């Protein structure tokens, strides 16, 4: 057992490991005597804490913050669909449409529950629930108008999740009580694709293409714009329209969904403006 052999191996995969340790003297200072080093280094629990502290915040984002951000959106969606189901206009919708909304509500409620558990498990505190502004909802005076907002919320959710996926890369699996080992990034991706399924169905219900083609009735809304708008036709410096024998701009933009940053999502022009009492 050689504690410093561990550090040597770490330095091979992470050349900056000594720098990390050096800048976290509060962690390392507990190892100021040889006897303490020997005693502590033999304890796996200590090592777990040690490396956790040495590497805290080395990913681009704090997973607790990322998941609380996701939870904000899920709370908003869940409350919105609850309001839809409780609305007098719900009875005017077809049985199929009602079933779809109830199915989507079921998923959003499940997402809220799972995200809260994940946040607690990784040592965070779930944010307090947020709701969809009652006054804004009251302006949606038909099932069709409510569906418009549902489309915007779902497409925003799809863009929001993919904007933060990179911040979850490399986060270790967590053991969720009653669920088992969960990889946080994978769980986020699994929620993300469900949101995309929802978005596609609501667009389909509204007579829109299930994908964002640039010719939809809501495509001028801020939810489809931002620093990287849905009209983008270049990905990773590759001009999609010039691939192969060439593609139309419409197909190029529909074949990739784009990200929204947290600031963009929470802006008043998008989801941020829908949160309130």
């Amino acid at each position: 057992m050689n504690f410093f052999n561990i550090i040597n191996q770490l330095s091979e995969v992470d050349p900056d490991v000594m720098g990390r340790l050096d800048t976290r003297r509060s962690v390392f200072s507990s190892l100021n005597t040889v006897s303490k080093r020997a005693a502590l280094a033999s304890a796996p629990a200590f090592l777990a804490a040690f490396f956790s502290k040495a590497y805290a915040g080395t990913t681009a984002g704090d997973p607790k913050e990322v998941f609380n951000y996701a939870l904000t959106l899920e709370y908003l969606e869940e409350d919105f669909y609850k309001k839809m189901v409780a609305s007098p206009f719900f009875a005017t919708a077809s049985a199929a449409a009602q079933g779809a909304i109830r199915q989507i509500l079921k998923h959003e409620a499940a997402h809220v529950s799972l995200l809260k558990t994940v946040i607690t498990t990784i040592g965070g505190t779930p944010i307090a629930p947020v709701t969809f502004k009652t006054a804004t909802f009251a302006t949606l005076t038909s099932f069709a108008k409510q569906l418009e907002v549902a489309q915007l919320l779902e497409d925003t959710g799809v863009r929001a999740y993919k904007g933060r996926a990179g911040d979850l890369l490399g986060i270790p699996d967590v053991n969720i009580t009653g669920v088992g080992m969960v990889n946080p990034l994978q769980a986020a991706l699994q929620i993300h694709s469900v949101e995309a399924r929802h978005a596609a169905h609501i667009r389909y219900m509204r007579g829109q293409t299930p994908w964002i083609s640039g010719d939809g009735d809501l495509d001028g809304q801020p939810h489809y714009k931002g620093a990287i708008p849905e009209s983008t036709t270049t990905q990773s410096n590759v001009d999609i329209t010039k691939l192969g024998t060439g593609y139309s701009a419409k197909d190029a933009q529909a074949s990739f969904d784009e990200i929204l940053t947290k600031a963009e999502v929470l802006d008043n022009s998008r989801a941020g403006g829908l949160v309130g009492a």
Partner: protein
Amino acid sequence: MSDNLQPRGTEESTLAQPLSTPIKRRSFFMYAGATAGASALVLAGCSDDNDDNSPALPKGNSTTANGSISLGSGDVGVLNFAYALEQLEADFYAKVAALPNGATLLSATEFDYFKQVAKHEAIHRDFFKAALDRDAAGQTLRGLTPIYPAATFTSRANILGTAKTFEDLGVSAYNGAGKLLKTPAYLVLAGQIVSVEARHAAYVRDLVENGSFAADDVVNSLGLDVARTPAEVLTAAQAFITEKLDGSSIGVN
């Protein structure tokens, strides 16, 4: 201490490796903060053997000892994996789009939408080829030869059924492989594509049975879509691909 080294699904192999080989960067980050990881690190610390005995990882598009085509290792493996699936999807939809009776088998609107999906999948295929040629020159998977059951393109039910299988499989493949990537930019690109695949999946499912866009067979009680390991995906996809693919080193480096 071995009690702390329980296999965790697909991570089993990467968890076991540091006991005998130097710690690889990705597996290290899997460990930070985990007691099980700390135990493995302790075991690594016990070893005085610093020789790198790990065998060379296969290059993308290389031929393995048993004649399979390797998708390669690390991020290249993930990209080639996605490229293989997109080749299959693109070929399928191209054949649908070329059906002279397409607008009869499907409705005119459905046929038009399928032609749009055919473009999306062809774009995904061409994009992965361009990205691989640029970022991993010489390791781009070769063009594959898809095969289909005889009646695949002869009825609406068979076309929709195959499309549903491919789309749901594609979504689960990206969901399962995302965590194997090391490069955040690739992860974002994969995310940009998988949500379009999920839109396709939802649409095709609605055509098979309206309202099944996110039915309980693809979204579980936690609200999670399906995620499959590359091995699970390749087992399913192999039935439609003439060439034998080896994805055993995907994500490993």
